[in-house]
């Protein structure tokens, strides 16, 4: 079970604890990867292989390579080429007596195993990849409800200008004659005093006040500011909003009728006032803040937020606008997490908890709507046409939820029968809505029979926005204007630029780049005293700005993600990373291409892929192998602790890793991991560039072996970046991951050649990420709307 080794250095007892099966160097160590494979031709060899396998291998590995609890539990799946597989068998099998299965015998076993269950292609055949019926994911549910209700409101175009509109008065309330100023404020960050507020209380010139003798004295009149506009929310989650002020104020977010924080009565000298609110990313929400100063304390106020997982910071100008968007219906019911066992969230399973959450959310939404029903239905309670209007609203609501025109029968089932009952109008509305929102026609986008055009529209919106089609998309669909590829492309180009699409793509990148590692990172404060949560938040912003820049400007060239020689940096980052910087806020700064290479060396990633004090070539290597190269690695033995510096203080990180992973059992995976990780050793635990460790020059050269057995010499991050940028596997893996994330189905379910075709088009488009997104959408749209024949 365990193997103990005598330590070669000093007096430390080195205990390398391994799972028993890990000691056996089996080819299952390297597991599934990608789609390139050799087709074994010799049926005869396979027959022979099958015989040998059943006789000599199946007792440990299972008759179909599924594994065996007692001997070798991991299934035989992997990404080695057929040749590499044969080599491994020759060298390591059988476990107790390697060398007994060699040459042609080994080769025929390899062919059998490869063809029947080892290779990715074989696994796909076994699993019969197909587009499975899926329900809305949690994210899709929230987005759909918000847009469904939003479709009954006028939309407001988010203005390009940033900052919030403020109107200042030398009076406690809005008093036109006492107006001091009408202006746009970049932020509400007036800890030292609000503009125009004069603590002496004497105002001698107010333009609008015509009476020269009538000075406004703040002691008597008070002072007030009305800020109105909106906030742009970067990501979905719970936001903590803080207002710092001793003055009286009222803060409204989203709901403009009920204050989020009501502090009109100042009481005690409490300065910080906090409330939390769940907001959806890629959308803007109304914001209103009324500040008044009375009798005469200094008027000071700061408006801050804590984004999900972020630090407390003043809400930046980039998030503030002067237009007030309509209220968004945000479902705040807690849902159980979606299945993400395939690496992306999808709705292929239901549970009792999910059904309960869906019910609760339906009731929540129905109540939300019924509270606002007159306005949503465009009528007034007392109006003669109130009931017919509400009924019409209900018909529209159901039709939009299902994405189709209702038949008469459906009209009665979903709406009519509820209005026939002796109930208050609000209860009638609630019943209609709860039924619609609990209907499989809403919850499973593929369940409803829609016209082909409507089905296309539904899929396009679901794919790019995780939501329902908007008015203009539906209009195209209903006019039959989605009939040509050009027309579809044209519409998709519009949709891809929508803030919801940008937010979705950003969340894909955070998932792909494993941002959660960095967001949660804490570092040794003695070694890195300036490394704090604010810096982590800056790093995240820096990465997002970089991604936005690559994706949404210029050619959207995928390769730039690796090759770019610039970073977005603000003052704090520049100081910490020793980067030349001038100006304010985030600036694009060119860096020495030998020290940085796009996302690969971005300090946000490097920080996340590192330990408390040290870098981690293993984390980095695994990350590059899995996320970029698409290699699947076996789970590491969980009870192996990384050697710390104390093990031998003279060793560099690389030397320690090399020492600890030198066993052949380790090297099955680490021969892939280590060379990739070592290339990034120039970046310390917080992603700073360095050339030395322990007074030794850092060695960043290595040899990486590709799945087909060829060797690539790499020296440092820049060379690794070039290798990755031009690597077809990396591109292919990116396409696949993006596809899965968007379609929430495996790409293989859409036909065998699909990935190849997408890759061809990717190359033709000059590796345009934007175009890829459109192409991927078209694949799913065309697949779903193809004639059954």
């Amino acid at each position: 079970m365990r193997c103990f080794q005598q330590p070669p250095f000093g007096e430390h007892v080195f205990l390398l604890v391994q799972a028993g099966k890990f000691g056996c160097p089996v080819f299952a160590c390297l597991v599934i990867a990608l789609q390139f494979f050799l087709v074994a031709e010799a049926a005869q060899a396979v027959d022979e292989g099958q015989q040998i396998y059943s006789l000599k291998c199946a007792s440990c590995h299972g008759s179909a390579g599924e594994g065996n609890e007692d001997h070798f539990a991991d299934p035989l799946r992997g990404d080695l080429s057929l040749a590499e597989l044969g080599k491994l068998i020759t060298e390591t099998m059988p476990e107790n007596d390697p060398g007994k299965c060699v040459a042609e015998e080994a080769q025929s076993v390899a062919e059998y195993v490869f063809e029947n269950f080892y290779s990715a292609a074989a696994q796909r055949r076994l699993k019969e990849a197909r587009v499975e019926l899926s329900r809305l994911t949690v994210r899709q549910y929230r987005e759909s409800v918000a847009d469904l209700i939003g479709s009954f409101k006028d939309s407001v175009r988010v203005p390009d200008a940033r900052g919030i509109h403020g109107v200042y008065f030398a009076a406690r309330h809005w008093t036109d004659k006492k107006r001091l100023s009408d202006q746009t404020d970049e932020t509400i960050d007036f800890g030292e005093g609000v503009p125009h507020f004069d603590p002496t209380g004497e105002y001698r010139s107010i333009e609008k006040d015509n009476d020269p003798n009538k000075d406004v004295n703040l002691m008597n009149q008070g002072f007030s500011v009305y800020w109105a506009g909106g906030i742009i929310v970067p990501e979905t989650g719970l936001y903590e909003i803080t207002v710092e002020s001793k003055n009286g104020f009222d803060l409204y977010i989203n709901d403009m009728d009920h204050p989020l924080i009501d502090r009109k009565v100042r009481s005690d000298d409490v300065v910080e006032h906090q409330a939390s609110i769940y907001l959806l990313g890629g959308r803007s929400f109304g914001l209103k803040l009324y500040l008044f100063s009375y009798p005469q304390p200094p008027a000071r106020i700061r408006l801050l937020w804590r984004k999900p997982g972020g630090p407390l910071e003043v809400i930046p100008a980039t998030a503030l606008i002067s237009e007030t968007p309509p209220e968004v219906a945000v479902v705040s019911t807690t849902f159980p997490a979606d299945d993400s066992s395939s690496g992306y969230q999808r709705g292929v399973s239901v549970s009792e908890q999910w059904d309960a959450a869906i019910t609760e959310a339906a009731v929540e939404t129905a109540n939300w709507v019924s509270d606002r029903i007159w306005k949503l239905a465009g009528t007034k309670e007392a109006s003669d046409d109130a009931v017919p209007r509400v009924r019409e609203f209900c018909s529209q609501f159901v039709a939009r939820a299902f994405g189709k025109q209702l038949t008469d029968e459906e009209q009665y089932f979903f709406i009519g029968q509820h209005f026939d009952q002796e109930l208050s109008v609000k209860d009638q509305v609630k019943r209609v809505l709860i039924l619609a929102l609990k209907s499989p026609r809403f919850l499973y986008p593929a369940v409803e029979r829609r016209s082909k055009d409507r089905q296309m529209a539904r899929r396009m919106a679901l794919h790019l926005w995780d939501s329902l089609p908007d008015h203009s998309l539906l209009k195209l669909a209903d006019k039959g204007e989605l009939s040509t590829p050009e027309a579809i492309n044209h519409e998709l180009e519009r949709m891809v630029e929508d803030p919801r699409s940008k937010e979705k793509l950003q969340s894909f990148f955070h998932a792909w780049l494993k941002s959660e590692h960095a967001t949660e990172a804490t570092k040794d404060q003695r070694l890195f005293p300036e490394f704090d949560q604010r810096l982590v938040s800056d790093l995240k912003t820096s990465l997002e700005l970089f991604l936005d820049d690559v994706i949404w400007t210029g050619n959207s060239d995928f390769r730039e993600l690796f090759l770019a020689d610039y970073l977005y940096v603000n003052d704090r980052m520049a100081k910490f990373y020793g980067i030349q910087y001038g100006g304010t806020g985030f600036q694009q700064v060119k860096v020495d291409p030998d020290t940085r290479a796009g996302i690969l060396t971005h300090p946000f990633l490097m920080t996340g892929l590192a330990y408390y004090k040290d870098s981690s070539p293993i984390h980095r290597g695994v990350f590059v192998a899995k996320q970029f190269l698409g290699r699947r690695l076996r789970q590491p033995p969980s009870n192996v602790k990384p050697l710390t510096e104390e093990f031998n203080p003279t060793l560099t990180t690389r030397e320690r890793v090399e020492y600890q992973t030198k066993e052949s059992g380790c090297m099955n995976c680490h021969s892939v991991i280590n060379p990739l990780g070592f290339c990034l050793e120039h970046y310390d635990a917080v992603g700073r560039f360095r050339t030395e460790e322990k007074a030794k020059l850092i060695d960043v050269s290595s040899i990486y072996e590709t799945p087909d057995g060829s060797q690539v010499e790499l020296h440092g991050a820049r060379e690794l970046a070039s290798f990755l940028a031009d690597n077809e596997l990396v591109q292919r893996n990116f396409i696949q991951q993006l596809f899965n994330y968007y379609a929430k189905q495996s790409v293989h379910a859409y036909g065998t050649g699909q990935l190849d075709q997408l890759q061809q088009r990717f190359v033709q488009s000059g590796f345009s990420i934007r175009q890829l997104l459109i192409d991927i959408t078209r694949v799913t749209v065309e697949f779903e709307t193809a004639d059954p024949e």
Partner: protein
Amino acid sequence: MIKSTHRREFIRGAGAFALAFPGLSSWSGLSWLGPAGDPAQKKRLIIMFSPNGMVREGFWPKTEGPDFEMDQVLKPLESLREKTLVVHGICNKVRGDGDNHMRGMSCLLTGNELFPGNIQGGSDSPAGWAKGISIDQEIRNYLQSNPASRTRFGTLEFGVQVSNQADPWTRMVYAGPNQPIAPIDDPYRMFEKMFGKVKDRENLLSILDLVQQDIESTKSVVDARDLKLLDSHKKFVDKMSLDLKNSGSRTYAVDPPELPRNVANTGDNMPDLAKMQIDLLVNGLANDLNRIATLQFTKSVGQAKMHWLDVNEGHHELSHDPDEKQESQDKLRRINTWYCEQLAYLCNQLGKVEEPGTNQSMLDNTLVVWTNELGHGNSHTLNNLPMVMVGGGFGFEMGRFTKVKDVSTTRLWLAIAHAMGHPMESFGLAELCQDGPVKL
């Protein structure tokens, strides 16, 4: 059974979904009946407030003891004389920031000072909210801490024509320092709070069969291999439907009151609004949704114009008139008589509810306290606040008029806390509570 696995975090203002849903269990498992237990042990407290001080003539009895006079204002309580205790000499002794109306209101039930703030009345120094919890909430927390006396809400705060303003003149109930609780003065909103969940449940139950049909009807569109997913979905819907039906027998002890429709929340409708609120209040207690309630008529400085009593001036305005102005005194007596009628209606309604398993009425197990933020209107005194207690008494000797001398409100609240079974040592400002609970 559906388990209450996730209790939703209440997100204030989140998308303005103002109604918090207390989780799954509420759909089927929630017991609408209160905790079981000996009904004789139930103790309830209602504090009713009316504003702007009390008239001297026509309210205060002249004779101490059981043979006290029930003059014009107290007349409506005549039939409840045996259960009534009128106390003279209770004083709000809290000083500090804020004018007398503000302190009268916000310090009345808290026995605590106001924080410095930005609300100014008259020439007194500006103030904010009270620094402490109010007695009703204190006793509520005590009852809620014990499973035997825990109820769904603990307290309900009723209002009648309170106004939309939030300031120390409009709030007497505090959950803690700086935490005023707004009374709900719209009976329909109160109904929603008390019974909305039941309506939701009814609505939900009414459509679950349809959801089942709907799922069945969509099966034909689905690939045979995907039917499993829809089947298991349907299974959960079936189960919820069954759970809800099975729990259907657990309804209220007393049906929710039928409220008249379309009564607008305006001053002229005050009599209707008051009746609706009192009916809801009594119903809540009968269903054991809460053991404590407050009923706040208007607010300190409230300007109710009681046209139905032929009083066209605002109440506060009238209360400033000197005692010599008989016409105003007469109107003030009519106003306060009307308030006493509301108290009598409340008590009589309580008296009509049988306490299950006993030969007592709910009134026997309730203490109703009617008070005011001022002793007398035109002098704005905080001394000798009108105190009328009605009910079973919980150890207080009822059926009399008694005078105490210059006793702090906090000592009365302490005595009531003790009577309610909460033997706390001190309440509000400690220095005002040094002599312990008042002996009446």
